[in-house]
């Protein structure tokens, strides 16, 4: 079982799909594949939690099934729902044909063809040769009841639909959960998962990420922008920019035809990196020339 180079292999495969994981994350994802356990990724916004799941799907060749969580999400949104319009139409058709028999009709109405599979059911009853990657995004936004339900689902990968019966996964999907930590998740859920905290990358890796994600970016620009963002992270900001913001910014700079940073353009595009008025004011307030000079020395 032990393959000494499996971590490096996965890391290289992720890199082929423009996702540059550090060794820690690569280790955890390797373990997730080997042990068939869900991974819980936490970290600041924009550090690439969701992207990690997407990249994992690309590497394994599995389909990506995404469930975006939000407050009030329930079984009808996450697991399955009945196609009411079709059911109603079916009743009317039977009625027109004078074939309506209440008991039988009820049985037919709640058959598989009227069931609409939502992401969780899709992930469980998949028929793919390669197990899909189930991304449960921002689980911290869902409420406690949903978390408890999810816990059950993640332990045996089967669900019982009263009208149909129990559906069991033939091959367990790979599961990636992400959380922004707006609230503490239940310990029981965490115990089911491998846990990894994704931090901001160092400047070298950020440059590499940017160059992988924005093809054709001038190297000089990537280095300067990454250095600039790195020094922004040392400032006292309300919202620290993540890698996602760096990428957005560099795309903007590339679109504007920049080969390196200059004060006027940085000033004009600051809003793609910093998303709070106070943060922009703080940076504009006399710091900008110094930050740019520092970035250009890099």
């Amino acid at each position: 079982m032990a393959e000494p180079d499996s971590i490096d292999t996965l890391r290289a495969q992720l890199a082929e799909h423009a996702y540059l994981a550090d060794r820690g994350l690569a280790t955890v994802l390797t373990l997730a594949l080997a042990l068939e356990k869900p991974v819980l990724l936490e970290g600041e916004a924009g550090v690439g939690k969701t992207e990690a799941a997407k990249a994992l799907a690309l590497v394994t060749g599995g389909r990506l099934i995404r469930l975006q969580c939000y407050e009030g999400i329930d079984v009808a949104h996450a697991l399955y729902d009945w196609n009411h319009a079709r059911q109603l139409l079916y009743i009317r058709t039977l009625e027109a044909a004078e074939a309506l028999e209440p008991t039988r009709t009820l049985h037919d109405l709640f058959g598989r063809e009227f069931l609409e599979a939502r992401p969780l059911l899709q992930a469980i009853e998949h028929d793919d040769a390669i197990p899909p990657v189930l991304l449960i995004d921002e689980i911290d936004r869902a409420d406690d009841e949903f978390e408890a339900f999810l816990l059950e689902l993640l332990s045996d990968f089967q669900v019982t639909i009263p009208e149909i019966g129990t559906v069991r996964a033939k091959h367990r999907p790979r599961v990636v959960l992400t959380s922004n930590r707006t609230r503490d998740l239940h310990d029981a859920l965490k115990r089911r998962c491998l846990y990894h905290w994704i931090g901001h990358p160092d400047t070298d890796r950020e440059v590499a990420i940017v160059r992988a994600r924005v093809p054709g970016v001038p190297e000089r620009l990537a280095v300067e922008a990454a250095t600039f963002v790195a020094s922004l992270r040392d400032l006292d900001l309300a919202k620290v920019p993540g890698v996602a913001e760096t990428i957005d910014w560099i795309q903007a700079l590339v679109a504007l035809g920049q080969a390196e940073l200059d004060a006027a353009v940085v000033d004009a595009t600051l809003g793609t990196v910093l998303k709070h008025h106070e943060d922009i004011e703080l940076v504009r307030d006399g710091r900008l020339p110094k930050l740019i000079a520092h970035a250009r020395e890099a």
Partner: protein
Amino acid sequence: MPAPGDVVLERMVGFGRVLRAAGLEVGPGRLQDALRGLDVVGLARRDDVYHTLRATLVARREEMDAFDAAFAAYWEEAPGMPQPDVGIEVPRLEPSAPPPVPAHEPDGGGDESGEESTTVLAASPDERLRQRDFADMTVAELRRLRRLMERLPDTTPKRRSRRLRAGTSGDVLDARQTLRRAIRTQGLPFDPAFRRRKQVPRKLVFLCDVSGSMEPYARAIVMFLQAVTVTGRRVEAFAFGTRITRLTPHLKKLDPARALAGAGGLMPDWGGGTRIGDSLRRYNDVWGRRGLTRGAVVVIVSDGWERGDLTLLDAELARISRQAHRLVWVNPLKGHDGFAPLAGGMRIALRHADVFVEGHNLVALEALADVLSERSLVRAAGQGRPKMGSAPDRA
């Protein structure tokens, strides 16, 4: 020499013990995951072993420092065979560690002024205690206070949730139920079913000043929070002086003495100076940014004596008030005769707080409970969002 696998197993069991001593929850299941993980990545590289153990044995960010310390101490310094309990100093993980309570202290006794004051107070009714300033209370009185607090009125602020529940009338058509009923009526939906939005508790966030001037009140506020927590309400609580600490895990302890001891042990600046602005910034950066403040009722308990930068306090309060549903400021000193909100910090607080109440005795805290549950709003209906002074007057 035993087989290599046995050595690893033995060492891992020892490591589990060290982690548990450091306050992490490491059960046999997690250890087994860790061992399986090591099987996959091998033992050749330190960082792989580190990441494997961290991913399998750590469940939250707060545990990472304790884990790192334990990892370094156990795997890198402890020599040779497993010696889990020998000489490894691991910092305890504070939030979930049991508080340092002296083992010999029996319930209800052992405090300095306990006996004397109990005798004096035995004759005095609860009513007098309710109106007594927290600052003048003895430890025994505080303990009695705890029992009175169990009878506090419901403090739950409510909001409409996106979650739906069934009802005969409501906001959203329940298609599934409607259809089931329609079968009885030849497929015609004569009897539509609805779902309506549920009322759910609002988040409640307490930020308590525990610096020197606030010390007598801070203890009572912690009790108040406990009383609220025990009723099953979710409260997030933080204590600040020169820095801010999350208090929530300690509130769950049923024994108030233990929680108080835990909370006291948690905060080195209990009785130190106050840097309100700094502390609020830290709160905003760490917890507020993740969305704790959004839509919550935020209660700040402080006398507003800011030793730090007033502009910072202004900015951080503005951040909170922009995101919170309501910002309530509790100032225990407000209840004192001749108080005027002159402390520099207090003047700024007045600008941002929606409600400004006192908090020096139980009567005042009962009024606070009223404010939190928004019962007082119902009474003051029609006056829009309450600003300062809408809190019930002191009895």
